[in-house]
């Protein structure tokens, strides 16, 4: 499905990562694999450091911390927030919506729209689409898009398939009218028949969490995880990405009439370095134009890796310069979406730490 939007822009971006850091070399002792194979995995996938929340830290904690910073520094006036969209797969509670929890904790006005969206690796693109749709309403002038996940809390430390790459993070994007004639192209596809490629089997209504769903099981490949844990079929996801993403980008650029060479940056979801480099090779995109360094520094925080890739690689240049960028997200659902837009002249674009509990 193709989308076209006019007069919209991302005017500010703040990424929040837990100060607490895990290290692959320490953690690989938890995996039931020969040391040299784990080291090979580190080299190929780009596993190194990743940011993980301390026990008990929730999505709303990261979001409220970041939003308070913006409000205290007068980068965002809370009275201006007409809509708060939260994209997450790890909500504080099953009910109420975590966006309502954030609204309440910050004491935001009642005359606004709070909305949770359950989306993963394509979540930032889906969240932007929703923000743009809301901005079609005259009453909505500023949308805050929070994309946040704390999926390390749902990942088995003994699962070499998932744990080394997982990271926790939040991002806060401010979306408003651009006040110019800029055009944004986007597309989105979904395939629910492949929904089991990425899932957490227990914890919902279908299979509520019990002591039985918390038992670690060897799932046949030497990895230990429980039904309460995130489960990823790595090779199925790899096939999905290599098959669906290149034609999606081709179609997006075709619809926009923009050649690959005219795109300054390809800011894609960051599953791991290996997959991104294979994608870049397949689409004949210069590796320098497609950053793949988020996982090695911070881990894969699902949809949040797109704003992380922007903040980590383009700040501070993005405050003064303007780039033509192509965003792409792909994962849970399965869902894959991409967007071509102009990014720049932002009011703020930074990456900050959420302090550890022992710190003041």
């Amino acid at each position, binding site marked *: 499905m193709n989308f076209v939007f006019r007069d919209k822009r991302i005017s500010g971006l703040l990424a929040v990562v837990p100060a607490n850091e895990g290290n692959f070399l320490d953690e690989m002792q938890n995996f039931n*694999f020969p040391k040299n*194979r784990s080291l*090979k*995995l580190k080299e*190929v996938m780009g596993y190194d450091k990743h940011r993980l929340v301390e026990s008990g830290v929730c999505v709303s904690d990261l979001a409220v911390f970041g939003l308070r910073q913006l409000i205290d520094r007068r980068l965002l006036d809370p009275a201006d927030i007409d809509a708060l969209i939260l994209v997450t797969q790890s909500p504080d509670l099953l009910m109420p919506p975590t966006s309502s929890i954030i609204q309440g904790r910050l004491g935001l006005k009642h005359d606004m729209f709070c909305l949770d969206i359950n989306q993963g690796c394509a979540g930032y693109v889906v969240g932007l689409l929703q923000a743009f749709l809301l901005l079609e309403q005259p009453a909505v002038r500023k949308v805050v898009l929070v994309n946040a996940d704390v999926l390390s809390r749902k990942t088995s430390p003994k699962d070499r*398939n998932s744990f080394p790459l997982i990271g926790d993070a939040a991002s806060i994007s401010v979306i408003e009218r651009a006040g110019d004639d800029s055009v944004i192209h986007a597309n989105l596809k979904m395939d629910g028949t492949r929904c089991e490629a990425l899932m957490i089997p227990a914890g919902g209504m279908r299979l509520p969490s019990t002591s039985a769903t918390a038992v670690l099981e060897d799932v046949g*490949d030497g990895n230990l995880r429980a039904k309460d844990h995130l489960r990823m079929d*790595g*090779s*199925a996801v*790899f*096939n999905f990405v*290599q*098959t669906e993403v290149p034609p999606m980008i081709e179609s997006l650029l075709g619809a926009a009439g923009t050649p690959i060479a005219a795109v300054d940056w390809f800011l894609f979801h960051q599953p791991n370095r*290996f997959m991104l480099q*294979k994608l870049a*090779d*397949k689409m004949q995109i210069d590796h320098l134009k497609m950053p793949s360094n988020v996982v090695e520094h911070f881990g894969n925080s699902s949809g949040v890796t797109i704003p992380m890739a922007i903040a980590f690689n383009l700040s501070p240049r993005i405050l003064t310069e303007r780039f033509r960028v192509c965003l792409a997200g792909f994962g849970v659902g399965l869902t894959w979406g991409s967007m071509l837009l102009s990014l720049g002249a932002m009011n703020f674009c930074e990456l900050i730490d959420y302090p550890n509990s022992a710190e003041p």
Partner: protein
Amino acid sequence: MDDFYTKLAEILEVDRVAADDVLSEFEYWDSLTVLSVLAMLDSGYGVNLTAANLRELKQAGELAAVVESRKRK
């Protein structure tokens, strides 16, 4: 297809791979290797296999035959 066996040997970290070698008997035949093989077939030959396809093939020669029949001309 000689380079196919060379590339396979590189991934498996052995000196050479023969057509009648059984894939699952290599010391390093694990999930990382499977992913690396899938990527090599995709980028080197334009052949897109799944891990399930790969599991059905017993010997290196059977994989070579599939690649030969499906590779980008």
